Structure formats: C-alpha cells, structure tokens
C-alpha cells in the first residue's frame, strides 16, 4: 500500500512538471523575438516601391479573373471525417501504451488492443467498400 500523498508534495510535483514547460515557453519567447527582430531589420533594409501592378494577384502574368477565394468543391470531406475519428481514437492509444504490459494486465489489454485495431480495420474496410478511398 503506497503512502497517501501529502497535499504539499503534489504541489511540488506539479511545479516540477510544469517547470520543464517554462523553458519551452522561454524558447517560444526567443523565437517570437527572433521573428520580430528579423522583420524589423528587414523593414530597414528593403526598398518599398509599391505599384498597382505589383500588388495585383499573380495569375501567370495576365490580369486575374474573378476573385482568389474561388468556390471549389472540397472532395475529401468524407475522409476528413475518417481522419477525425481515427485521430481521436489513436490519441487514446498513448496513455494505454505506457501501461498495457505492466504486470497484471498482460492478456486482458492485449485483447483490448485487438478489439481496438479490429474496430479501426473494420472502419477502414467500410470506407473502402463505400468507395471513399478510390479516386477518379
């Protein structure tokens, strides 16, 4: 039986855990500074002579037809669904992955895993049968 954790202890552990992310945060600040300084220095170095022709949207050198945000048919929305379902599923793999072979789990988690893989495989097969995964 492990000792019950003291409230103070938990706070320290959490602080340790997040302190590693404070370095990540610092690096993010460094990165943002780098980009800001680069853009600032660039502003001093570069010429700025805009003409209406320069600011025109590029379209092979001819005047652009219609507007850039053209209506297009996004053909992959079906497997966008597929992706969202699968990705959410596989996120839950990670916490499971760290404990599944711990003593006392063994066979049970393995059966779970095959159930999980089975579901994904059937989903993929279903999408395949439905013709989502064939393109013309």
């Amino acid at each position, binding site marked *: 039986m492990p000792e019950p954790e003291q409230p103070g202890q938990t706070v320290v552990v959490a602080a340790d855990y997040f302190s590693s992310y404070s*370095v990540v945060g610092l690096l993010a600040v460094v990165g943002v500074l780098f980009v800001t300084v*680069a853009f600032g220095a660039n502003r001093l170095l570069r010429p700025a002579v805009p003409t209406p022709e320069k600011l025109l949207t590029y379209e092979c050198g001819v005047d652009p037809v219609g507007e850039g945000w053209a209506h297009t048919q996004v053909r992959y929305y079906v497997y966008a669904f597929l992706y969202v379902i699968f990705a959410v599923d596989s996120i839950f793999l990670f916490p499971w992955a760290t404990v599944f072979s711990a003593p006392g789990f063994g066979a049970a988690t393995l059966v779970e895993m095959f159930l999980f893989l089975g579901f994904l495989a059937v989903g993929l097969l279903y999408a395949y049968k439905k013709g989502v995964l064939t393109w013309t």
Partner: protein
Amino acid sequence: MNDALDVALRLLVVFVVFLTFPLIVGQAEHKVMAHMQGRLGPMYAGGFHGWAQLVADGVKFAQKENVVPAEADRRVFQLAPAVALLPYLLVLLVIPVGPGEGAVGQSVGAGIFFVLAVMGVGVLGSLMAGWASANKYSLLGGLRTAAQLLSYELPMLLAAASVAMAAGTVSLTGILDAFEWWWLPWQIVGALVFFVAGLAELQRPPFDMPVADSEIIFGAYTEYTGLRFALFLLAEYAGIVVLCGLTTVLFLGGWHGPWGADGLGWVWTLLKAALLAFVVIWLRVTYPRLREDQLQKLSWTVLVPLALAQIALTGVVKVVIS
C-alpha cells in the same frame, strides 16, 4: 543564478542549431543533388565549393521588397511564415542528442505527445498562407496541404504509438533509456511508416503535390517574396532536421552505438540524423512527384494498415516477453 545561466546556455545552443543545421542540410542538398545529376552545383560564393551560397541567398532575400497583394488578408498573410517556422524551434528543444540530462535542451514528460502536437502546428502556417493569399494557386496549394495533413498525420501517430508501447513511456529520453538493439528489426515497419509520413507532412518530394512548383507555382507560397519566403524555406529545412532527429530518436536508437561509446553518444545521433537527411535528398532526386490521388491512396491503403499491423506486432511481442 547558475540555473539561469544553464537555461540561457541551453536556449542559445538550441537556437544556434536551429539557425545553422537547416542551412547545412540545404547546402548538402545543393551539392548532393548536383552531383547526382552530373553537375557541380554552386561553386562561387565563399570560394571553397560555394559553401556560402545559402548565406548569400539569405542576404539577397533580406534586401528584397516585401510585396503583400492588395487582395490578400494582410495580417494573416504576414504572420503565416512565423507560424510555419517557430514550431520546429520548439521541437528541437526536446530532442535528446546524448545520454543524460546534459544532452537534451529540456526533457519534457509528455515527449512524443508534445512533439507531434507542436509539429502539427507548423502545417497551419501553410494553410494560413494558402488561404490568406487570395490567389487561386495558393488556394489549391492550401487545400492540398490540408488533404495531405489529414491523411498522413494518422500513420505518423500510430507509428509513434508503437514505439511508446515498446518503451512503456512517452518521454523521449525514457524511450532511449529503454532502447535495445533488437528494436531495430522489431520496429522497422513503424520506422518506415513514420519517416514516409513525416516526409509527406513536410511536403518534400515525391510528396510535394501541395507546392508543385511546375504546376501550381509553389502553391501556398506563390505570393511570397523576400524574407517571408525565406522563412518558409527555412521552415522546410528545419522540418527535415526535426524529422530526421525524431526518426533517429524513436526508431534508430539515438545515442546508442554499436561500441557503446559513452562520451560519443551525440556523434551517433548526429551521424544517424545526417544519414537520414541524405536519404531525404536522395528521394527527392530519385522519385517523380506523386499525383494527388496516389498520395491519398498510399496513406490510407498502405501506410495506415501497415502502422496498425506494427502496433499488433509490438503489442504481442511486448506481452510475450514481459
């Protein structure tokens, strides 16, 4: 005080690596591609075999005019290169290059999780650029980027999950501590899936349909000039460094080497990553660009099933030996 100095030093090293390694990979690409195609590549800048070519390119980029099309969504357009670039800087911080606490910028408990999540943000930069440019080519490029992200993120996640299962931890340093040489053959399928999916996520040839310079004129980057375009290029090469580093750490044993040289762990990491970077360049020279439907097909009908099979294999072996 010492702690602060230590952190500052680590940040500095990571930052310098972030600024130099992508250029080294870029220069290697110039030269390797050239020699594979029977050319010499850049020979002039800097004197010795054109070593300073990319520095010269950088100077040129910094002096070029910055054109934001009148139709574009100005703020998003200007912000996009930073969004594409900075995630790779953050990922470099957590990749361990040698054994122990001293050889990693900062070990983060959620390792793989953190890395995959942050790398996903990088793709947003291309999406922002594609949409904000208000250009038909860019829009096409952006849509293709989105399609590619959707299909290749999944095999990448699954392959990484297989390693987490093998090691019993998601921490990158923890994975390397648990590594044994026979993981190489055990996880080889996962390694291939991860590497290929990573290449596709970086939109490197032969998976460069979203940028396809000869068809849709660099896709999302069509309207970019000067420094902002340079930052997108830097992001691509920083992405190669990160992908090679991650594949090395997850699948090739990182700092473990055949003779177990303790002090030389970082040499092994660099060597393996460099070898992978060479393969990335090699693939670019070797294969023609995949068509959009071939891209999708490869992911959904080959990589995802392979990754699932790898997970099954990892699970069975792990339970049997424990």
